[in-house]
């Protein structure tokens, strides 16, 4: 039974998480450190940054999220599940705050702040990771969905430059154009993506 050791490990991790939270609730702030370090990356990469699109703001929101978690740890009630969904909800609330404060009316911001439902029930740390993976996949599907509605050359420009992260020279070479023309192509591609993404989000929000 290969799954048994993995299950044991998951339970051990969950027990450790519970012990750390209890320690923090009894006043040992440093006990929160391993938990924050464990979940900082999934919160940043799958919850905050995809909803803000700005790395500096995302880092700030992550720090505020973690700080709020520490401040309010006494209010957290252990229910035999990972703390990750609680942290995720704090992060989403912070993202909403940022959008409200900056009064962003941009379609993309509206679209990205839109809640992505996550079905997983994070009873363990592994499931919390699964939850983050699911959320990443959901974001990716929305991006792919929008990419599918773009013209081929725009889709290719975004794929080469932003997904594969090839250099401008390499992208231009692969598309058989000059660097200047590739710059224009990418510029238009991102504009087209933005419009398409916002429009699809509006359609999704309309009642059927």
């Amino acid at each position, binding site marked *: 039974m290969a799954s048994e050791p993995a299950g044991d490990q998951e339970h051990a991790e969950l027990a450790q998480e519970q012990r750390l939270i209890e320690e*923090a609730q009894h*006043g*040992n*702030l*440093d006990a*929160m*450190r391993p938990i*924050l*370090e464990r979940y*900082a*990356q999934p919160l*940043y*990469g799958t919850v905050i*940054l*995809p909803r*803000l*699109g*700005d*790395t*500096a703001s995302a*880092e700030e929101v*992550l*720090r*505020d*999220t*973690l*700080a*709020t*978690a*520490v401040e309010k740890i006494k209010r957290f009630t252990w229910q035999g599940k990972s703390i990750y969904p609680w942290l995720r909800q704090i992060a989403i609330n912070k993202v909403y705050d940022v959008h409200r404060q900056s009064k962003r009316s*941009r379609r*993309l*911001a509206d679209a*990205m702040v839109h809640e992505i439902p996550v079905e997983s029930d994070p009873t363990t740390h592994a499931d919390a990771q699964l939850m983050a993976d699911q959320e*990443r996949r959901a*974001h*990716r599907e929305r*991006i792919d969905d929008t990419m599918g509605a773009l*013209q081929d*050359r725009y889709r290719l420009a*975004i794929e080469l*430059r*932003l*997904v594969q*992260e090839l250099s*401008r020279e390499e992208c231009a070479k692969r598309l058989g154009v000059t660097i*200047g*023309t590739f*710059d*224009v*192509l*990418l*510029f*238009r591609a*991102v*504009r087209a*993506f*933005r*419009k398409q*993404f916002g429009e699809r989000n509006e359609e999704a929000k309309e009642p059927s």
Partner: protein
Amino acid sequence: MANEDDYLTNPVPDPDDDATPSERAHAKTFAELVDKTLSGRVPPAMSADDRALLEVATVIRAASGNVQLAPGKQRSLVEDALRQAIGGPQSSLPGVTPIEKARRRWVPWSVAGGSMVIAAAAILMMWLRTAPVEKPSMPTAWMSRPSDPLIGPIARERAGDASARIDYIFADRMDGYRERRLSRGGKR
């Protein structure tokens, strides 16, 4: 033509459409911003349009799993968050105070109370120093004083008689001067 450069709301041309010089310039600026972002150097200043488009690029990259938090940055953010939670200065120094110790509410209150006591003592000292000291009485004519009681309200039709009023005040002051000079043989 005012909205020609409004790249966020204008329709997007087809890939093979010719670009205007203005669009080429914008595209080059955006390409350089993307370059910097990909190398982890997000420029702090840019136009709102460029920022909006760069956010799109970052969202696409984030969804592709291309944007990771550097381990050093993560440690620093966790450390800052722990410090922020206890109300201390944000820095990456190790050693965080336990939450109970940090949340002793009396510390800020005692600092504030101490400051208030010091401020009150300073005000009291200033008041004592500036409190009216009993001065030897002296004739009114020897002191600086307003001339309003001397002149009284100036009627509109007498408004132009400023010279007469000045002469009157001068004469009054001279009276005081003479009184002071001539009393006690010119000595106070």
